[in-house]
């Protein structure tokens, strides 16, 4: 009898935990901030790669990833102030793909902003994307934070305008991550000028968050985990006290600190990518700070994909990764060590076997 009671109690306890877990943002609710009026959150969804097959058919696997992220972001409590989409809504930049992606995204209840990815861009150089979502680079202010959105996936004019006989071929050449015919990403002179101008009106103490598709740092050139003019962008951001860069493209968790700038990547909703060290022939520079995410199990469609919500506590970025088949991860800026840190796995001894990539 007492055994039954005990197991019943155990069951209720477990059942209660499951129910709490399924409301999702429980870890967010538990976070308490010093100046709570100044703190806010936003959700980040990225790299959906909506892929058109034919007629009204799209690759189901990628559709499901985006739909799940949208549905879950809508359940966040407290509500995020806005939702960012980090680029690569489409796979090959077509109107059918962008329309289909925008339709799935339209279910989001919060204000929505977009970053341009190379898969959105290289068919018509962003013309249709602009019609749907607005300018390719812009800035805005929100609750004392200055946000900057860059199109970081442009490249040399010669490659863009002279190399390829058709726009379709240009798109296909850039869509292949490991394609040796591709070209390095860059922000380019036009936007660097604009950025310099935009920053003149920003106080040096104002927290700055930059959204780009590619990392504004150099990790591995072969897969464009790379931005050619990264150093120049970093130099423009150097005078500011708190700067965070959040980028997509890499389909994996990465983070780093370079001087005053914190870097955080976000995950894809479509599929995960290998860490560059998994390519035996690659010369690569994954930030030493990064504790990799678990190796993906392909038998679970959504494993190693997900979305994230971001707390801007005191102007620093805390990233909460919602991972579907693994324990969620939290990468938070450490005031003591002055760089982002994983809350569970940062110490060498705390790491687990699935985080070993080869």
């Amino acid at each position, binding site marked *: 009898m007492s055994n039954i009671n005990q197991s019943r109690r155990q069951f209720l306890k477990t059942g209660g935990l499951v129910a709490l877990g399924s409301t999702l943002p429980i870890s967010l609710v538990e976070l308490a901030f010093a100046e709570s009026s100044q703190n806010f959150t936003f959700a980040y969804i990225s790299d959906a790669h909506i892929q058109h097959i034919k007629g009204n058919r799209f690759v189901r696997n990628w559709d499901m990833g985006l739909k799940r992220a949208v549905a879950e972001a809508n359940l966040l409590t407290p509500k995020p102030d806005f939702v960012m989409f980090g680029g690569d809504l489409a796979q090959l930049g077509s109107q059918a793909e962008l329309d289909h992606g925008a339709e799935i995204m339209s279910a989001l209840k919060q204000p929505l902003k977009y970053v341009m990815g190379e898969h959105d861009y290289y068919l018509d150089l962003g013309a249709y994307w602009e019609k749907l979502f607005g300018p390719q680079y812009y800035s805005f202010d929100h609750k004392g934070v200055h946000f900057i959105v860059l199109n970081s996936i442009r490249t040399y004019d010669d490659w863009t305008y002279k190399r390829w006989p058709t726009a379709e071929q240009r798109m296909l050449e850039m869509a292949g991550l490991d394609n040796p015919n591709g070209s390095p990403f860059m922000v380019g002179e036009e936007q660097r000028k604009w950025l310099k101008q935009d920053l003149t009106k920003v106080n040096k103490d104002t927290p700055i968050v930059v959204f780009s598709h590619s990392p504004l740092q150099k990790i591995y050139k072969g897969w464009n985990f790379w931005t050619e003019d990264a150093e120049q962008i970093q130099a423009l951001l150097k005078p500011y006290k708190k700067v965070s860069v959040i980028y997509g493209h890499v389909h994996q968790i990465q983070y780093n600190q370079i001087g005053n700038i914190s870097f955080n990547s976000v995950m894809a909703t479509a599929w995960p990518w290998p860490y560059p060290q998994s390519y035996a022939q690659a010369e690569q520079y994954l930030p030493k700070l990064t504790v990799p995410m678990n*190796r993906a199990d392909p038998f679970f469609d959504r494993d190693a994909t997900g979305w994230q919500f971001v707390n801007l506590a005191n102007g620093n970025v805390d990233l909460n990764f919602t991972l579907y088949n693994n324990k969620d991860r939290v990468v938070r800026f450490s005031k003591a060590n002055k760089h982002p840190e994983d809350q569970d796995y940062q110490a060498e001894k705390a790491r687990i076997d699935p985080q070993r990539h080869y």
Partner: protein
Amino acid sequence: MLTFKTMIKGLVCICLASSINLALADEFTQEDEQRWQQQFMDVVKQGRALWTSPTLGSNGVACAQCHPNAANTHPETYPKFQKQIGKVIPLWEMINWCLRNPLEGQPLAADDPKMIAIQAYVTYERRGVKLEPGQH
């Protein structure tokens, strides 16, 4: 037991062979090696073409979308216990799993030239890595 007669016969054969200058099995030249390497690289190239092809499966998805440069395929660890399948399998069975699932296509026979080309490409990208059969 060898008779004297058969020994003589054998000797005559050897003499004949060398006199008409047939290549000996254990001797090859740099030219030979280059030619064999070229044959191999041609198949690697075919494999790379299949790896990036949107028509290998039925939904336009290519192997390279998830596995750039065939990374995270670990050919050096096969055959191994594939935990999701519950037994020891060779690499080609795992390739067929990918063909059926993410690519929504048809599996290939083990000796299909396409399957051989895919394996040649995957293994070539992993050159220099030591064999670790069975490693997860």
